[in-house]
């Protein structure tokens, strides 16, 4: 089932919050995942795994491009697209 940007953004916020074990404020597209949300490679991976479960999709590790995950905006776009493709 396809999802809209708002749903994807909220799912991302909840996943980040769960992985970091702390409250995460509402996300904005311009936020940088590494610098603003203090993610590192391990928490980035955990967040994606969490999203795979909550949003029900499956990524191919050989298709993962870091540019898709650098900002909240890019990440949300990735989530919307992956859900569309796998719908």
């Amino acid at each position: 089932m396809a999802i809209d940007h708002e749903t994807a953004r909220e799912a991302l916020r909840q996943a980040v919050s769960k992985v970091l074990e702390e409250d995460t404020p509402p996300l904005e597209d311009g936020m940088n995942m590494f610098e603003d949300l203090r993610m590192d490679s391990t928490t980035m991976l955990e967040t994606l795994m969490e999203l795979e479960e909550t949003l029900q999709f499956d990524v191919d590790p050989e298709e993962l491009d870091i540019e898709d995950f650098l900002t909240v905006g890019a990440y949300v776009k990735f989530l919307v697209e992956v859900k569309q493709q796998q719908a």
Partner: protein
Amino acid sequence: MPSNCEFVHELLDHAAATWPDGVAIENRNASVTYPELRGIANFYARWLGEQGVRPGDRVVVEAASTVETVGIIFGSLAFGAAFCPIHPTTPAKQRRFISEHSEAALSIHREDGELVAQNASGTVRVPGVDESLAGAANETRLAELCPDVIPEDIACLIYTSGSTGLPKGVTCLHRQVVFAVKAIANSLDYREDDKIFLGLPLSFDYGLYQIFLGIQTGATLHLADPRSAGLSLLKELATTQATILPAVPPMLETLAVLARKQAGSLQSLRLITNTGAAAARATVQDLRSSFPNLRFQLMYGLTECKRATICPPDADLERPGTCGLPLRGTKIAIVDDEGRPLPAGEVGEIVIRGPHVMAGYWKDDEETANRYVLRHSTMRELRSGDYGWVDADGFLYCQGRRDDIFKQRGFRVSCSEIEAAACGLKGVNHAVLVPPAEKKPSVLFVGFDGDEFDVISRLRDELEEYKLPGKCISLPEFPTTPNGKFDRKALKALAHQ
């Protein structure tokens, strides 16, 4: 291809002569051969002179994973100046501390996205790789640029977290670095046709040494954005067709998870070398199942001697938990608290001897004397601060530290450094850091003497990103021991609840 090089930059001369068409460095956009890299180094050596740098000076370099960084490093060396690599996320304040402490003649860093060089008289733009490539036809041997340099001169200062407060500058002489590079290359199975995927920052010594190891062995170094060594690691390894991955444990864990989803087409990768902290055996096992052709070389070392032991490929299968044998021409010993040697099988402090033991800490004679100890008038040894034991065949097994240094995301951090930085914030009166444990982030406990605020975001102005605590918890009152010290054990329990 043995070389009698005495200088770090001479290794590049040797590579340019031996592999005139060999690709030294590549990234997503470009690649340069060994002779081109030598030309780039020639260009930056001259440019450093034009900026007022003199042989014997220090140059601080923000070590982003770029060809420019590598060119500036070799340019400094060939010019007779020592370079001092710092992490790209180093806050301005920390960078100024390192510049002042090292008495650097020049600091090269990024400002508003542009690479600039700052000296006493002002700031200038640093020429990019395209400009430096214009001089790449220059075939002058780097070793001829500055005839006054001797192997005893300083090649680099590597700032690393010390056991007290501020970072310490490990002082590395040309002869020590050259010895270490040759000895490590002798133990590691790196070959001329290899491609090394470097997702570690060049400011960390194992990342930095990949440049030298590539040049020593004729391999190609693929410089990747360290951020891509996470989620996109499998893709990057497949796309670049890399054969060797120098890794820290979090990278291995990431790769293991990604590989469980799909190990498919990763045919080229044949060797992983692990440093930074002991790799979880289960992770290594996972990776072995996912990639049957993949071999491992596990290692142990610290910046103060670069590397102490390296395991022959897959020898950990026979000896689970080992981190290998001492480098060729070096020794390790296990000693008790009084410095007396212990027999095989007994746990004590790991002590390292040999020509790879670096010169000491820059301008810190006290800490140098504490760690680089004179056993007798002609023998100096490095007290590692790490504990472990050796088996009957001389293989080392490392058990970790007993002071306040720990590894976070594979990189060295000290509790006292972070606590000092937190207590330096106005409004914080106590700070205790609990290091990360299995799957739990590091936790900073703070006490405020006024309004509470977001300590971690303020610490970003004080510390590099990789040093930041995972979590911060405010405590109105700190548990104390009967001696009146903060009860770290109780705080640890609280952190890991």
